[in-house]
């Protein structure tokens, strides 16, 4: 039995009066890739953002229920510690435009005012960029601005920036929806590498992507977690009628 790293019990989220995540119970095993899919507006992104408490940035957002990281409820922790342990990569690549590639990778330390010796910084930058499969492409241009990279490279830079903080979990919010097919496939390959060290939760509206990259898949519909199972099981033999309809393309 794999150990669980993130789990929610009776988790609900609202924007104002709009109930967007309804009573979700899910447990995410360590070192797995979990895809969260569902039609637009089904609450999958909101659920993802509830895991590291980014949804709180929206005024009127509230959440209740338990969201456990290891054995701690993230809603009892300070959001800063939550976000140090749970990294996030967004839909559009968003490197800091005022920082170089090097500084972007160590931004989590640098901008937080943590001073590290140069050797340690170099090591973190090289390790993070290598893990994000970007090192070979940028090692000669580390001091150029991150915004000069292509979209796919920028997204991998954002991944490097997230893993530089050594989080336990990485959240991806439709990480390839703004990228071209080649960049997309390079990011997808990366997921297989990353899961050795981290637990990945990936929101995607692309079913094929969920099928390609994930170990387990969760299907959200209208704010509910309809079905959650091994990816193979889910795509070949879904138990719920709604999942089946979604997978066979009867609605999207």
């Amino acid at each position, binding site marked *: 039995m794999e150990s669980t790293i993130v789990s929610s019990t009776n988790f609900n989220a609202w924007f104002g009066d709009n109930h967007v995540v309804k009573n979700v119970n899910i447990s995410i095993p360590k070192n797995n890739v979990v895809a969260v899919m569902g039609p637009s507006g089904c609450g999958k992104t909101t659920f993802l953002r509830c895991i*590291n408490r980014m949804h709180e940035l929206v005024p009127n957002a509230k959440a209740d229920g338990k969201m456990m990281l290891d054995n701690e409820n993230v809603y009892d922790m300070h959001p800063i*510690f939550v976000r140090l342990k749970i*990294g996030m990569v967004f839909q559009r690549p*968003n490197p800091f*435009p*005022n920082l170089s590639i090097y500084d972007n990778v160590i931004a*989590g330390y640098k*901008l937080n005012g943590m001073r590290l010796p140069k050797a340690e910084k170099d090591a973190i930058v090289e390790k993070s960029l290598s893990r994000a499969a970007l090192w070979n492409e940028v090692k000669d241009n580390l001091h150029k601005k991150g915004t000069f990279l292509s979209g796919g490279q920028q997204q991998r830079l954002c991944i490097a920036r*997230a893993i530089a903080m050594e989080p336990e979990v990485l959240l991806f919010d439709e990480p390839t929806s703004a990228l071209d097919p080649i960049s997309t496939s390079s990011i997808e390959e990366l997921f297989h590498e990353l899961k050795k060290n981290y637990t990945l939760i990936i929101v995607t509206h692309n079913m094929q992507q969920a099928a390609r990259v994930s170990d387990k898949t969760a299907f959200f519909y209208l704010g509910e977690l309809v079905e959650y199972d091994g990816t193979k099981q889910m795509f070949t033999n879904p138990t719920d009628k709604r999942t089946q309809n979604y997978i066979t393309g009867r609605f999207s």
Partner: protein
Amino acid sequence: MNKTNAHIKWRIAKSNIAKTVILVLAFACVIPLLAIFFYIIKEGVTKINWHFIVSLPKPVGEEGGGIANALLGSLLIVLCASIIAIPIGILCGIYLSENKNTRLAYYSRLAVDILQGVPSIVVGIIIYFWIVKETQTFSAISGSAALALMMLPIIVRSTEETLKLLPDSLKEAALALGLPYHRVILKVLLPCGISGVLSGVILSVARIAGETAPLLFTAFGNPYLNSNIFKPMQSLPLLIFNYATSPYDDWHNLAWGASLILLIWVLLLNIITKITTRKWRVQL
């Protein structure tokens, strides 16, 4: 056939007339500025030399004399005004861009807009009643306070507008890395918007450099060199105002020279603004 041809020709002619009118009017906008430049340079350039910059005004009838007191005074008054207005203005701008819809933001935005429209002479009178009457003396610092009130709206609005233009994704990226809120603002948002914030600040300095009305009954003017900001102080616009309305030719000459110096000052600040916006712009 002929009729259509004639019609099209007439339309082409109309289009050319419109183009010419636009060109002439666009050029007409530049003429006043060029005329002012030409006239002030013509009158002022012969009066300016090293002596003019470093010496004090002479009494009527004596040759020479300079504007050292006004130059120093203007620098000090504007410096103090900047020290008062820049931090408050930037902080207020940050608040407004971060809290777009709160009641406080609504009222402070309204207040800032109204403050921008308050005539400068009224600002001067208010400071006269608040500070000069209370302290029983004209002083440079009261002049700075009046000028700071005039700088404030420009800095607030330019900071707010600049920061509003930054994409939300930038803030999200910083917060997702576990940065506390104040560091998100200081280390990410401000550095990314620095060119806009700075150009607002420099423009506001250029804007107040020539203000005369708020200084008339605050800094008051002083024929002697003074670097004590709690005492009355001369400034360039005050000197120009006093000397240009005097009946003496020597003083008129000083006023022309001072006008040219003020013009160069404002021009330089505007050029610096252009350079900072270009050089420090962060490509988003």
